[in-house]
């Protein structure tokens, strides 16, 4: 019972690009170059790094939606990489995903009620209608929302729908890939607060990706910093924020928008 919620060991992921000439080798993109991390049960873990550093790739692999070139991933003590889908039932029940852009992560042809019920339907869980109403209420949407289509909602509301879908099967682990970076600045704080509330209320393990260190510091206990497919620094959020070791982390901290820091810099 003491094994971590998520354990990533030495994961490498290479993408093959189509070859550019007949004789040349197929170019290889190394999106992950040996990443290891552990997320404890009930822990809120943040992953920061600039665009293209491999954050989304890592999340897809953790959610067993992609297979690593090498390395091992375990969720709740069980292997998930290279395991056939029919034996991943436990993962689908216990780990859910919130993706970056709710304009593309909700099927435009599906009613919101069906979107939110999707994990319940796919996993044959009972009490769909009740549960859909429950989670919609939890994310602050009225029950009538179920009858409408995603495009009838604003960006912030759509991300709430996406969060409701993730909560529906009562997961233990929530994985969120830059959940507010596609949203209007004005609604980001609301959605982040909602996420924080829900994670705390349900005692969820959170793996949160962001390119904003200030956000991660706010929401997470542990933080890992990623650059070019590698983790350059890992540690408690406050420590990383106050005493960044790696030059890249230092740059992130300096560029992070923070009122107090800005005031500190004033003469």
């Amino acid at each position, binding site marked *: 019972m003491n094994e971590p919620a998520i354990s990533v060991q030495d994961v490498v992921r290479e993408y093959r690009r189509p070859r550019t000439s007949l004789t040349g080798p197929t170019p290889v993109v190394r999106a992950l170059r040996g990443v290891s991390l552990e997320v404890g049960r009930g822990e809120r873990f943040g992953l920061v790094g600039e665009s293209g550093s491999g954050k989304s790739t890592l999340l897809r692999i953790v959610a067993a939606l992609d297979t690593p070139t090498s390395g091992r991933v375990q969720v709740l003590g069980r292997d998930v990489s290279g395991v056939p889908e029919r034996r991943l039932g436990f993962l689908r029940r216990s780990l859910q995903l919130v993706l970056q852009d709710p304009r*593309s992560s909700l099927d435009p042809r*599906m009613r919101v009620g069906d979107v939110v019920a*999707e994990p319940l339907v*796919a996993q044959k869980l009972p009490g769909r209608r009740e549960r859909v109403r429950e989670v919609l209420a939890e994310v602050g949407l009225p029950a009538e929302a179920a009858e409408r289509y995603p495009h009838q909602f604003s960006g912030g509301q759509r991300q709430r729908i996406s969060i409701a879908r993730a909560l529906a099967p009562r997961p233990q682990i929530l994985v969120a890939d830059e959940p507010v970076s596609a949203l209007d600045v004005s609604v980001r704080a609301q959605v982040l607060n909602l996420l924080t509330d829900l994670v705390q209320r349900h005692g969820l393990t959170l793996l949160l990706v962001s390119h904003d260190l200030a956000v991660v510091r706010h929401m997470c206990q542990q933080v890992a910093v990623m650059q070019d497919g590698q983790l350059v620094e890992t540690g408690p959020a406050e420590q990383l924020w106050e005493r960044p070791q790696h030059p890249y982390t230092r740059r992130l901290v300096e560029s992070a928008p923070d009122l107090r820091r800005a005031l500190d810099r004033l003469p």
Partner: protein
Amino acid sequence: MSGRGSRRGGAAVLVGGALVALVVLMALLSFLWTPHDPTLVDARVRLQGPSPAYWLGTDRFGRDLVSQLMVGARTTVYVGLVAVGIAALVGVPLGVLAAMAPRWLGELLMRANDLLLAFPALLLAVMLAAVLGAGTGVAMVAIGVSTVPSFARVVRAGSLQVLRSDFVLAARAAGRRPWGVAVRHVLPNVAGLVIVQASVAFAIAVLAEAALSFLGFGTPPPTPSWGRMLQESQSLLFTDPRLAVVPGVAVAAAVLGFNLLGDGLRDRLDPRLEARR
């Protein structure tokens, strides 16, 4: 954005829809009523010009052109429906399968598909007719079979795009298996493409049926068909061009109607597909 989307292709859909509706109404009405018996030969009224009794006149056997046109529309719609039905029923699953199968299998299916695509519909129909004998059924099957590849191609391309989308990733994370993804996500999202393809295929089928009947491989006499009306007008083309113009305009209007409808619908649907990537 949706406001602009619904405007685009509006005129084409309207005009195309009206032409298509006209053909379908003509066909439906012919079951209840035609001005005359379209197959009634009457030597006393051969080759008459338009008159109150015969709105578009008669052919060289004294048969009423309007009545033939109406019953001929039946053949056109019937052949089109069955041919497009066959094409969609085979082509859509094939396209989805080719998109979801392992890469090598998908490529293999598409290469075979391209081979079929390169094979002319009319040639296939003529070959089938040579083996099985001419008839409406043979024409429908031939046109249908030769239209399968175009459906498969379009549906595969659309499906690949849907499969790359975030909502499919989310569905898989929710526990959907490939079958569920295909039925709940891929099919509903390529339905628009299929409708567009169907109207374009319908236009091709109308033309192909007319051509086959014209060549004598399609609908046999005495069932009226636009293609046969054209064929029979041949010998009198210079003395009485009306006999060619009437069915010619009908074929052209139907083909134009289905093409306009297809293009208009494509314009309407495409921006949404684009925006989704």
